[in-house]
């Protein structure tokens, strides 16, 4: 899962990036509103963690602008003030959720999972697909009730494909999901992860659409 973190405070941003990475998220960290807006308009993220007090362009402005331009990525805002106004303004500007500083990372993770669940149109916390069950909260995958040993990247890839079941995801989309801007991407990385997933969960789970990408078919 690729998350855009927009936070100007060095220590908080660093902590959030590391914390989210520990959870298997791919984190891209930007420190000003203007750049964040550009990134959101040009690239695909699964969620945005947005601080409101940003240099150059405030979080609220960024929110309004991207929503006007049709970006539907779920956004969670970080507010420093307890006041109702900030929360109401944030939500009305297009945020999906808010969390007040200081917060617990566990809460942030849970809120992010909830956002993704809603974005994928699910109410259930677990994703069930045939004999496969994926638990986003514990980062675990079960095949016929038995836990499968799976790497964070493989987990993310499977999660992404399952959430978009029935849709073809391009190799580029998948690799953006797996890697932020920081990491040098091996051009074969996605193929390697898909290969591993097929070995663990069955050859026919993930379909290759030649020249386009990969997909998991909707269950008939």
């Amino acid at each position, binding site marked *: 899962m690729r998350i855009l973190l927009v936070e*100007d*405070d*060095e*220590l*908080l941003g*660093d*902590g*959030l990036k*590391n*914390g989210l990475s*520990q959870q298997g998220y791919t984190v891209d960290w930007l*420190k*000003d509103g203007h750049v964040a807006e550009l990134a959101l308009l040009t690239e695909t993220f699964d969620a945005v963690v947005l601080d409101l007090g*940003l*240099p*150059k362009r405030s979080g609220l402005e960024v929110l309004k602008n991207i929503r006007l331009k049709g970006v539907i990525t779920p956004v969670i805002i*970080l507010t*420093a*003030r307890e006041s109702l106004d900030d929360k109401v303004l944030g939500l009305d500007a297009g945020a999906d959720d808010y969390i*007040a*500083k*200081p*917060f*617990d*990372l*566990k809460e942030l993770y849970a809120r992010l999972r909830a956002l993704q669940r809603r974005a994928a149109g699910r109410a259930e916390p677990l994703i069930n697909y045939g004999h496969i069950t994926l638990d986003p909260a514990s980062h675990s995958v079960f095949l016929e009730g038995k836990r499968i040993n799976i790497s964070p990247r493989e987990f993310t890839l499977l999660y992404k494909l399952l959430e978009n079941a029935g849709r073809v995801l391009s190799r580029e989309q998948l690799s953006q999901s797996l890697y932020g801007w920081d990491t040098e991407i091996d051009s074969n990385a996605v193929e390697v992860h898909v290969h591993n997933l097929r070995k663990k969960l069955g050859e026919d789970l993930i379909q290759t659409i030649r020249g386009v990408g990969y997909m998991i078919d909707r269950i008939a």
Partner: protein
Amino acid sequence: MSSIRRFLLVSLLATITCVITGAAIYSYFDITRKINSIFDAQLIEAAHVIRYTTEQSTLPQGNNLNELFSPNQTYLPPKLWDTIYGDDLHPYDTRRVFQIWSDDGVLLARTEGAPPYPLAKDVEGFTTSQIGNYTWRVYTLIDEKNHLRYQVAQRNDVRAYLVKNLALGNILPDLLIYPLSIIMIFITIRAAMKPLQRTINDVKNRALQHLEPINTESVPVEIKPLIDEINLLLSRLEESYAREKRFTADAAHELRTPLAALKTQAQVAENAHDETSHQIALNKINLCVDRCARVVTQLLTLSNLRPDEPLKEIQIIDLSKLAVEIISELATDAVHKHITLSFDESKTPAITNGNATLIQVLIRNLIDNAIRYTPEHGQVIVSTHVEKQLVIFCVEDTGPGVAPELYDRIFDRFYRELGNKAQGSGLGLSIVQQIVELHGATIKVSKPGKHSGLKIQVFFPNQN
């Protein structure tokens, strides 16, 4: 405690009591005197009337008086008495008696109640005589022509009784006025105190945080200045209350981000998979704690600087000496960032008056800020100058500087240059400005002449 109500009550009651008592006593004695003289006049009048009546009733018929009054007949015929006084049973009957004596001392006539011996000596005019148990007021009229003596008298106790009745009757209205006045005084004072009470209630019933001015519309003119003063005080209180509230809110807000960073880094450390990232996160926790501590220290400094309180512990201060001390303290920070920190001392001593502790805070904040916001391999130049009237402390850096339109805003509490990586509290320059104001100094922000960056000059009065 003095009470206007009690004072008014006591003084008005005392005044009214004195006035009414005085008036009553005066009118009692005045009336007594007047009635006495009226009674005396009545005695004279009665004597003449008796004389005239006696003459008229006897002489025209050529009767001798001796015939009219036989020596045995000691009482005046009731008929004659009635013609003089009528059926005299009036409550204010003066109960006069009289005697008619002949020249040679024979009692020709007397009324009932008059003794058979002379009421007084044979001298014309008023006399007072003691007859039996009673004192009599006697008027003697000598009729030389008819050789008769008339004596009209009245018992003093009867007269006193009448005088008392009349006089008391006369002062009764005065005494009735007394309770009425007291009631009126109570009512008036209560009415006069009402607007005061209303104001008191207005103040009493307001909520603790309700610092709006007291309504002066219905306030009496006499206490309006007081209410105005209280309102002034209230508005100042409200101002400082609002300032405190804003400050607390800002402070809380300002601590939220460092605390969020601290908590986040702590949780990262907790969940770190390897020793290196664990160690890195722990180091960052230390940085977070340092930052929180700095914010707290600056907040305390700022809350101790009260703009409305005069400066304490003023002494002579050598700015250059203090600058050198603080530069040596901060030198390590500069070295870590590879910043060249230098000091240009003024040729003549930079002496001013002030509070040494506060000036140290000012110098430290300015230099610390410069080091903090100047990128690595930059320069921070501290200098002191002396001009005719002024002693100048100056800090210049080669940092990114500040846009001129934001020069004023950098002194706002919690203002931080947006997008700045430096971990400031946002309070340093606000503190500097307060210290500057407390010292009657001025501060100027500008761009250094030769390079980019920020130049801050503080102008102190020259005390040399």
